[in-house]
């Protein structure tokens, strides 16, 4: 049962992830965005199988529920007919492949070095929060500052456009 569900969600995540990047049937940006939503939901299913309910809920809430809705909002506001017709050039393909393999290598290395997951991430929200504010305080603060910088940047850019 557990294994079946794992393979089901993993296959769903990979398939819809692939369909985001290369969809032979449609070049419609909305279709791609919707497959990305499906991939997010499948990932959240995988988190549930690992008993990481908090992460699963956050995955749906933040990525599927908020980020992707904003993507759709932008896609619908701008007329993206142009991008449907555009072909991928050789330069872009090489650059993209290089970026993907670089990121993949980084991820693989990190995964091999990482210790086995702690029980705290699986347990209650309280334990997760405590861990974030003690053991992982430094990365947590860096991410917070990064988000703040991004927020200030967005406000600066949109202000300049309004003037």
């Amino acid at each position, binding site marked *: 049962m557990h294994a079946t569900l794992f393979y089901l969600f993993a296959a769903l995540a990979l398939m819809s992830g692939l369909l985001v990047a290369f969809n032979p049937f449609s070049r419609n940006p909305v279709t791609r965005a919707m497959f990305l939503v499906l991939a997010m939901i499948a990932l959240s299913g995988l988190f549930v199988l690992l008993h990481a309910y*908090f992460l699963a809920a956050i995955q749906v*809430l933040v990525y*599927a*529920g908020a980020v992707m*809705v904003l993507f759709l*909002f932008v896609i*619908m506001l701008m007329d993206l007919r142009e991008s449907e017709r555009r072909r991928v050039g050789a330069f872009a393909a090489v650059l993209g492949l290089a970026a993907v393999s670089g990121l993949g290598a980084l991820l693989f290395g990190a995964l091999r070095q990482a210790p086995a997951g702690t029980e705290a991430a699986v347990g209650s*929200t309280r334990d997760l929060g405590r861990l974030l504010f003690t053991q992982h305080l430094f990365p947590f603060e860096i991410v917070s500052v990064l988000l703040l910088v991004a927020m200030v940047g967005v406000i600066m850019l949109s202000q300049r456009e309004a003037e």
Partner: protein
Amino acid sequence: MIDWINNAIAGLSAQEQFALFGLLKILVAVFAIVLPLVAYSVVAERRISAWIQDRVGPNRVGIPFTNVRVWGLGQPLADGVKVLLKEDFTPAHVRTAYFWLAPMVAMVPALLTLAVIPFGSVLGAQPMVMADLNVGILYTFGITSLSVYGIVLAGYASNSKYPLLGGIRASAQMISYEIAMGLSVIPVFLLVGDLNLGQVIAYQAGGAWLVFKQPLAFAIFLIAAFAETNRLPFDMAESESELVGGYHTEYSSMKFALFFLGEYAAMVAVSAMMVVLFFGGWTLPVAGLNQPATSLGVGVLQIAVFLAKVIVLMAVFIWVRWMLPRFRYDQLMQLGWKRLVPLALANIVATAAVLFWQSTKS
């Protein structure tokens, strides 16, 4: 008979019992409670609007094939037959796949939300909640945040200007008010100290209901709930005076009915959530109803208490719809971002400060 059932149940393994009772609870809760509640809230909407506007409203349909008119309570049957038999027209210019997908996506999240709502204490040995998650509230917010897709996809699939505007408005509105809604419940969980909805009810059974302890949180949650369910005064996605019918302009027959029912199912879900978070869930501070039931009768009574509270809140939703005019779009955004979000943040800081002060004192 009862002995036979008891023996048959005792013969099953724990996992089989869980599956059996889970399925039973889902079937009964959805088909015997929620869908009739949705059908009758449509009648209630029409009758209450009629009273408010000094009309009579639908009072004719009673028991089919007889002359008995039970105050128009047969109306859902007539409405159901009507939407099923109407022509299901698909305009030529729509994007067909999304046009079919959107009504389904609109209906599903509202029903999924109910999975974590504890709608009663216990019946026999079975807890009256389908899935007792330790992150119950986050699950409901996650699922509610998916409900916007039904509207956005409908707007996109219709491929014409008014539905598209409705869809765009809905996506911006729902994201904005989701933030206010999410922030407004944080003080509740600061007080309770747990994200599990059963624990929230247990906390309220031991003292005052949270609506009295956190009136500001409740007010923000209520306003955001109107926006999240696309009800007047915030039904910008529909807004029939500007956008014809908004996102469902191009829909007819059962597909339109699914949007319509989805809206009412979302109202049931959000009312149930408010009952759990702010009105003590299935508890009532009289006659020992605050404790989990020890007999079947009390268990059923507690479910009835829960349903009664949900129905009162549904009536408030309907009442407000016919009393307040629609907001303008910029007013809606201003209220969400410049009033509700800062207020909710201040409420969190104030609650945390009071709790900290109390913990240092003792």
